[in-house]
């Protein structure tokens, strides 16, 4: 009896570990595939700038949960917003993210993206540690993924909710600056400022 239970327990652990390893492998491959797609778009000289950027954004959007990022960046303030404000804030934030990403792509020149390691602290969280390697330096970029309980429509199974560049978290810095801005201004002024940028 004891042996049977032990056997079942061990095989269950091995099974779940296999599943996890498989999931991790899939995520890595998916990520590299996306990056490769982006590089193809960047290198295609036929695209003009705005066409190229919108193509890149379209490629990457399924991998990011911009909505969640918008909510997290407001911290406790999020809960105090009215439904209309919430909707407006999310759409402004998403626009800003896309614009910011496109502008970063503009300065791209032959850097390579390498995966250095992957950490799965929880069943539904994965940290993908990558390096942006250029001729004379290596920048560490960490992508934090989570797995929503139910897959969202038009979205990947695992979604990025924060990007950490050289130890600097996008969400954290946004949260800090929004918080300080909101100490002397209200939410509509913040939204005005975001859309003005």
């Amino acid at each position, binding site marked *: 009896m004891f042996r049977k239970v032990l056997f079942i327990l061990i095989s269950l652990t091995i099974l779940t570990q296999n599943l996890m390893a498989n999931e991790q492998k899939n995520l890595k491959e998916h990520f590299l595939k996306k990056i490769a797609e982006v590089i193809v778009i960047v290198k295609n000289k036929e695209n003009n700038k705005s066409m190229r950027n919108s193509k890149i954004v379209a490629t990457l959007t399924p991998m990011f949960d911009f909505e*969640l990022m918008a909510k997290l960046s407001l*911290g406790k303030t999020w*809960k105090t917003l009215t439904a209309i404000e919430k909707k407006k804030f999310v759409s402004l934030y998403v626009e800003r993210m896309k614009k910011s990403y496109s502008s970063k792509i503009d300065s791209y020149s032959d850097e390579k993206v390498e995966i250095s390691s992957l950490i799965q602290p929880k069943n539904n969280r994965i940290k993908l540690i990558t390096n942006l390697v250029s001729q004379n330096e290596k920048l560490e970029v960490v992508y934090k993924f989570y797995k929503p309980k139910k897959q969202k429509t038009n979205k990947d199974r695992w979604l990025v909710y924060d990007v950490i560049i*050289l130890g600097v978290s996008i*969400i954290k*810095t946004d949260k800090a600056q929004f918080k300080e801005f909101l100490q002397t201004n209200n939410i509509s002024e913040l939204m005005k400022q975001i859309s003005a940028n």
Partner: protein
Amino acid sequence: MRYLVICILSFSIVFFTGCSNKSVPKKETIEKSAIQDSQEDLFLDEFDDEFTIEEKPDPFNSYNRKITSFNDGVFEYVLMPISKGYDKVMPDEVQNSIANFFENIVFPIRLANNLLQGKVQNSIEETGRFIINTTIGIVGFFDPAKSYFKLEAHKEDFGQTLGYWGVGAGPHIVLPFFGPSNLRDTVSIYPNSLLNPSIYYHHRGYNLTKNSKHSLYVKAFQKVNESSIQWQRYEKIREDAVDLYPYLRDAYEQYRQKQIEE
């Protein structure tokens, strides 16, 4: 615990909507959105501890804000035009080589601080890098240590050493021309500069510069060269700022924290 709350909430919603199903149909939708909200709150709470911002006193806030906009002005109207012009006339290879040279001569700072943190392996590698790059790399203009010998740099400074031994960052201080810093890193400027051969100290045995004025010119040149490589980076960072001072402050502190942890 969270599941329990969800269970209770959903049970009560089911129960109440069940009771009032026919009499007040509108209530159902109201409560549905209420439960969606509370579920969303619970979901967001799961991420809370990853993004807690340390409530740190910021006694120099108003001074720092002024210096931040001063620095921003210096960058935009002085440093950037010069760096852009310099970038246009200088080939990238030359810019990188000059940056390599300045990186190589501050080897004493890296060695001392790797040793002060007990990082023996890194100290050996840094020494190896210095010897290779000073000789084969022609006084440090090239970095064969990395490209051929696969020896990565281990940048350490005195601020990181203090942080490593548990000294806190202290209040954030924005320095004119130098940019974001904190008390710990500001104090560390002096010990770092003592080990920097390009900064002139009369009583020190080794000086690569003839006098303080000379040393200042060299420093300015180094700064221009550095920003000629990186000016786009600061511009891109600045674009994302809604409020520049807290944005740069937080980015700097997170970046330093990461360097200390490595």
